[in-house]
């Protein structure tokens, strides 16, 4: 199969032919994104008589609605690159959100949960949210490295437990009535704030993954843990770091989400983990580890956003939306794979 097929490829290790290979893998998935957008544009003119893309508020909502998933997906990307998986993101969003929200309420709100904790500066709930997320991530990482259970199980356990904590924390009642200061996190800059945070996080982790040892270790562990170990990398320590950071990003995503929608609910974040994983995988991150880039994940998230907005734009029946969405996820990955194969063959 793969390796056997590979045998054919490298007929000569001629450095010239190799230079051509440097087209980043993200190009093909970027083309998928463009393809989907153009398709909606054309269909828009035909069926709705409107432009899909030439509409500032639609462009905003496209990015806005994937910012939260996008921030999570960046952490998930790192986790997947190490060869792991994180199923807990959605529930941890809810847990961080519920706990932090009780520190974000304004005293003028009729249903204050902890009256002693109202009108706090915005960084208090923010820190609480980040800490809760990071802690959940740390527990994931600790379980995976110290007890050697598969990441799937550790994070599945966290998924179930964190949801329980989110429900238990306020007995299931939603928490709203945030201070204006806190709400800015999701609404400042004429509502572009979540997008700005998403972009900053993406750039930071793009740099981290490409230009720091932290990034190289992450790839190395995913590519071949044994080789990483004999190269002197402390795998356990590094994995704990990666899961903790992923958790921190989930906490951040939760803060952005509740600041934007101005409420925290125990049921929120449902299936976010799957959307985040889908964004990463559509963006070319390999579930077997060792391969993938932040830029790809960002594009993957945008594909999901374009799809969501496009469906509403074309007024496709909600029933069909799901059917088509499933198909598009599959087709996007197929196209990406096919293009990558072709590129490999032609070099």
């Amino acid at each position: 199969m793969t390796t056997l097929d590979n045998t054919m490829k490298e007929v000569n290790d001629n450095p010239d032919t190799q230079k051509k290979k440097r087209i980043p893998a993200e190009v093909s998935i970027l083309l998928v994104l463009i393809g989907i957008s153009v398709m909606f544009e054309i269909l828009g003119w035909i069926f709705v008589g409107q432009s899909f893309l030439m509409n500032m508020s639609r462009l905003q909502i496209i990015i806005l609605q994937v910012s939260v998933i996008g921030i999570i997906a960046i952490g998930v990307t790192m986790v997947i690159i190490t060869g792991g998986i994180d199923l807990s993101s959605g529930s941890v969003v809810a847990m961080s959100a519920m706990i932090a929200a009780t520190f974000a309420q304004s005293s003028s709100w009729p249903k204050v949960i902890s009256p002693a904790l109202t009108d706090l500066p915005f960084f208090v709930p923010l820190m609480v949210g980040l800490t809760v997320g990071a802690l959940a991530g740390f527990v994931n990482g600790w379980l995976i490295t110290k007890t050697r259970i598969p990441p799937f199980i550790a994070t599945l356990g966290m998924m179930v437990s964190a949801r329980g904590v989110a429900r238990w924390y306020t007995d299931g009642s939603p928490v709203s009535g945030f201070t204006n200061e806190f709400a800015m996190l999701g609404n400042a800059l004429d509502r572009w704030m979540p997008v700005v945070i998403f972009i900053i996080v993406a750039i930071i982790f793009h740099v981290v993954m490409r230009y720091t040892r932290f990034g190289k270790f992450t790839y190395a562990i995913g590519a071949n843990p044994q080789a990483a170990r004999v190269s002197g990398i402390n795998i356990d320590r590094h994995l704990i770091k990666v899961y903790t950071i992923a958790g921190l990003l989930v906490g951040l995503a939760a803060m952005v989400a509740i600041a934007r929608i101005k409420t925290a609910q125990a049921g929120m974040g449902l299936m976010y983990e799957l959307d985040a994983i889908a964004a990463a995988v559509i963006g070319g991150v390999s579930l077997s580890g060792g391969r993938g880039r932040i830029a790809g994940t960002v594009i993957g998230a945008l594909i999901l956003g374009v799809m969501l907005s496009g469906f509403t734009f074309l007024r496709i029946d909600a029933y069909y939306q799901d059917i088509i969405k499933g198909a598009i996820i599959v087709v996007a990955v197929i196209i990406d794979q096919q293009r990558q194969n072709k590129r490999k063959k032609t070099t």
Partner: protein
Amino acid sequence: MNSAAVEETVSVNGATPPKDHSCEYVLEVVNVSKGFPGVLALDDVCLKIRPSTVHALMGENGAGKSTLMKVIAGIYQPDSGEVRLRGEPVTLETPLKAQESGIAMIHQELLLMNQMTVAENIWIRREPTNAFGFIDHAKMARMTEELFVRLNIKLDPEAEISTLSVANRQMVEIAKAVSFNSDVLIMDEPTSAITETEVAHLFEIIRGLRKRGIGIVYITHKMSELFEIADEFSVFRDGKYIGTHASADVTRDEIIRMMVGRNVDQMFPKEDVALGDVLLSVKNLTLNGVFHDVSFDVRAGEILGFAGLVGSGRSNVAEAIFGVTPADSGTVCIEGEEVHIKNPNDAIMKGMAFLTEDRKETGCFLSLDIQENIQSAVLHEHFVGGGGFVDQKRLNEESEALCRKLRVKTPNMEEAIENLSGGNQQKVLIARWLLTHPRILILDEPTRGIDVGAKAEIHSLVTKLAHKGVAVIMISSELPEVLGMSDRVLVMHEGRVTGILDRSEADQVSVMNLAAQ
């Protein structure tokens, strides 16, 4: 590691001053024991390595050589005993600690991050960084190139490992180990995946390192290498230390006796077999861009050897015949009848068997046990009754008989193949194909990583099979093996057959001439 330390490791390409030799031994292993479930892999062994010396380790498969090396490299912790560096006892809890103490190792199995580039693999954890702590990729590429220039390796530092051939991957491992600029360099069968040219190249590198005062531990199953490169050698048998000698003082037969505890009469027990009809006939087989116009015949009872340099396309031809990667054009006939083999299943149905060259990638089912590994290729056969039910009892009996015949060293047949030494894994895979009772047997590097004793056994087994009328194709990068075993030798160069020599006219020179053109 800080960037100053990186600078130091980088400077290997310059004129490094020889190491300080104030101690007689750089490395001493004292009374080390190490057990695994069911096996005592090391039983109270000792080993002393001098600086500026190539010290070979010899021993049968499963003698404990790799285990000892892994203890020294900090991968395994010994159950008892100690390791001393320059006379000082050290505890090497992690590979990192061993590296920092000046021990580098090339592992028996390739241990590279396949999805990363050559440079990233070599400098992992030691990447050069700029003033802001970010990795300086340009400098890393430069360091790699300098290292490659010094070692005379021609590879693109930016190439991804997964695109390299096994031989080139091995060269990357070697370069990586050298780059540590360590006091002790362990090489566990570094030549098992490379051909004569690369071996010569490696030996040049080793001689250079020896001159700089490094103590080199060199594990090999190839006798010729021992005499060529090693200054002294130690022998292990069944986890026990047998003795150390200067390689100039002993003969080949003496070493073998030390290793296996008995005489091995004949390395290449070639018998003259009356050749039968043509069993397999290949005409103008072509896989575009890989090999072209390959034609040859093999008769019943004949052993056809394939010789050539690494990458000459021998394995690809075998894969094409067996349907792993079917050829684009050309014909294959069995007993004069044209066959269309589109996948390995077709090939097996036609009575072919194919031992692949990469044990780990295409051979072993690591999570399964020995029995299941042996039986994987016969599930289409008479062992399976109606409803797909397998005649497990009969299969187990036959598998066990084969294991006994091949002397597979294992506590029992339910042992996971993962826990066997490389040589024993190889024997299990041979057993897999013997169980199919093939008419045509293709062996790609059948004795890679196999000890002398077992090698002789496999050779005699192949001879016996030929005697029974099996047509054998044997691909090997060990020229003596090809020359010793084959009735005829087919030589390939860059995807083309450059000649087919009869046993009488084939020798080192004639084959190498055809192979290198």
